[in-house]
């Protein structure tokens, strides 16, 4: 591959990879099905590459991708009405705008710092908590299977996971505020 277009695509790919945590979290938070979320993330790239091939100049790639992702999410919601809460369209639209605002404020480097902090926080978890997280987030086990595997009731397993995630979130915030290696 040679010439200006491949270089443009390669630069865009590099930035896309750098931004993927934030964009993935944005889509993943809004779309219930993780596979659908992954498909949407890939669709954003396909559209970005197509625009660049057409010669479109994209000044702020992160914002452009988020805008495309937002439209794709909206379309996904329209096709999968059952996957979103029963709410009036205005509230949903406002929610989408406000979430987009959250991610506009974030810098890719801050995501990298947060993920590094999260890595340390996961490392410091008790084995039992890490095992619960592994079952849920790594092995994609459903709550019934987690309850059966751990000997907890369905509700207890669900509450334990919520508590562990809240602890991790607090841990990440404390590490970011106090310096990453605190």
């Amino acid at each position, binding site marked *: 591959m040679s010439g200006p277009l491949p270089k443009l*695509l390669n630069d865009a790919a590099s930035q896309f990879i750098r931004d993927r945590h934030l964009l993935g979290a944005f889509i993943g938070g809004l779309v219930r099905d993780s596979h659908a979320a992954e498909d949407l993330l890939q669709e954003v*790239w396909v559209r970005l590459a197509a625009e660049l091939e057409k010669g479109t100049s994209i000044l702020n790639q992160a914002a452009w991708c988020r805008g495309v992702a937002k439209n794709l999410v909206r379309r996904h919601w329209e096709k999968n009405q059952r996957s979103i809460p029963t*709410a009036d369209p205005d*509230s949903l639209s406002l929610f989408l705008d406000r979430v987009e605002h959250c991610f506009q*404020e974030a810098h890719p480097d801050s995501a990298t710092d*947060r993920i590094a902090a999260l890595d340390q926080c996961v490392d410091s978890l008790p084995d039992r908590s890490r095992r619960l997280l592994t079952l849920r987030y*790594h*092995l994609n086990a459903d709550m*019934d299977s987690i309850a059966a595997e751990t000997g907890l009731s369905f509700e207890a397993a669900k509450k334990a996971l919520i508590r562990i995630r809240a602890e991790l979130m607090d841990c*990440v915030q404390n590490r970011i505020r106090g310096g990453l290696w605190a």
Partner: protein
Amino acid sequence: MNSIDLVETLERWKDGTLAGADLERLNHALESADFRTRLLDTWLLDHSLPGILARHSIQSDLPAPGTSRRVLRNPLLKTFGAAAAGLLLGLFSASYVFGKAAFPHRKVVPLLNESFESGPTPGQNGIPVVPNRWSGDFSRVVDAQQGVQPNSGKRMLQLCRADYEGKHPGFSYSADIYRIVPIPKGLTGLGEASVTCEAQCSSVPFAEAKRYGISLILCALDALPDSAEPGAWKPGSAQPEPHPSENAELVSASARRSLSLDPRGMTWQPLRLEMRLPAGTRYLLMSFHLADHQAGRNPRESGATEFPGHFLDSIQVNLVQDASASNPRP
């Protein structure tokens, strides 16, 4: 709103159980910069956790570099480790899209494209010992059934019962079907190789949400069992019968993915899994396990669970080879 309240609220958002009034409260809370930061943290956490947990799992479970294959004593840990390798790959699966434009060195080799339109009737006598044949518990190839249309073509596979001919007379609540897929020689020796598997799953409607779940398990094998008996897959005599992934002598890597079937039924849900293949892999043992969790919670002395209408179709297995990894380094 503290962290637990926030996680609970966002959990309900993801579950689709957040009430309209709660969404308005969420919108109101998002006016606060602090709350916006916390929402971002929560979603970034959810997005990053699988990869971080996979790394932790790999670090703790996989053999150290330079050592030969280690037989892990805890078969579950072994499965975790192998699944981690597959999942790490999945985290960067967006790169498959980039492949068209920026990474032309990826090569995709189709290994199986099954829509049950032709081929031998699935065996009903447990795990197969020969490649290219479906076998396992009682199943049958059917046309459109009870309102469920095949996902592709005119036929699909129905998983009927949680036992097979000659199975020991114990209680079981999981209907299993297996297939051995040969990996062509030389394809896993050069560069990084992985397999991707995608299948479509459907059922008739049922009352209790999350009652039925289906898992896909992939196992990488260097060779097939010596014995021609299906029992050769099973380590020891543990009961209930262990999955072949627990047989560390035969299986060099494994990965698993599960999904809960939609109780509204009648639609097809995709089940996808990727797994990195160790060099020298000659066969892939692919299996689907349909579980009735309600039956599992209320075990009987004996007897196999029957399934009223649960189907598989459009099963595709591809080998993805990254030839660039085989280039000699300066």
